[in-house]
């Protein structure tokens, strides 16, 4: 029986079957490659997983600095980490040099950092703000 054949020497049915097999193969290889790549080279953790959480925690840290009435200013503020289903966000506050008070006023620099740690992953910096605080003999002498 005479069959129509293209330039590759394949019949229409053979060509269709070949394409089908190739498509299935590509899909299988795609899935396999994804699995292999994920296993061999785990993706770098993203810096900003949930920017709104990071921003809120930065504000919380800054407000904790603001709310403290202690003079000299404290080193720690006891902010508990925030744990979500897949990660932990921590707030860390670093205090700069504490100068002697002048006329009872003291200005100290602070840095508030929020870190992100996915379950089983490294802890990475997610956000940071710098601020200062003025303490003094009267309320309202500084923020």
């Amino acid at each position, binding site marked *: 029986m005479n069959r129509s054949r293209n330039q590759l020497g394949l019949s229409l049915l053979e060509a269709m079957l070949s394409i089908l097999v*190739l498509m299935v193969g590509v899909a299988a290889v795609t899935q396999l*490659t994804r699995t292999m790549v994920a296993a061999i080279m785990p993706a770098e953790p993203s810096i*900003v997983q949930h920017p709104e959480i990071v*921003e809120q925690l930065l504000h919380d840290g800054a407000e904790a600095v603001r709310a403290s009435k202690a003079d000299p200013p404290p080193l720690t503020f006891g902010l508990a980490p925030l744990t979500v289903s897949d990660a932990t966000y921590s707030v860390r506050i670093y205090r700069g040099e504490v100068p002697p008070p002048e006329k009872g006023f003291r200005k100290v620099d602070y840095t508030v950092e929020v870190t992100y740690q996915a379950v089983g992953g490294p802890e990475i*910096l997610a956000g940071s703000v710098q601020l200062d605080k003025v303490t003094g003999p009267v*309320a309202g002498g500084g923020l």
Partner: protein
Amino acid sequence: MERRASERGNTLLVATILVLGMTVLSLGAARFLREQTSLALDLRAAGYPSTQALYAAEMGVNALLYQNNVRANHADSPEVPEPAQWTRTLAYPGGAITQQVGYRITALGPVSTGVFRFEATGEVKPAGGAMVSRTIRFDVATGSVWVLGRYEQK
């Protein structure tokens, strides 16, 4: 001209190997592009320039109060501190963000006896990014020391 079965098999084998190779290459390229795009967006957002600009403006408020309260003599009107600017570099995984952070204070004049109004503007310019600014309008009132009165974020 009709080809032999072995030639057809070779064609299919070569085509399959080519398709598989191209698939792996395109997957790798797509993954690389996705990671680079994600990192660039992450780095842009991670600086939190708006939040930093707000606290830079508050540093301006503090500079005015501190400077005027530690002066040798309690003046009739508060002095405006010089504009300040400094550079911050934050090391994030995958890259660093350098920001120009600063504040400046503008005197808006007396509001009533012993009360003066100012505006503090905090500015953050990420390297390669647009300037972000936040402004606080505030009053300082005199007494034995200068104290903060009205405070409003604009």
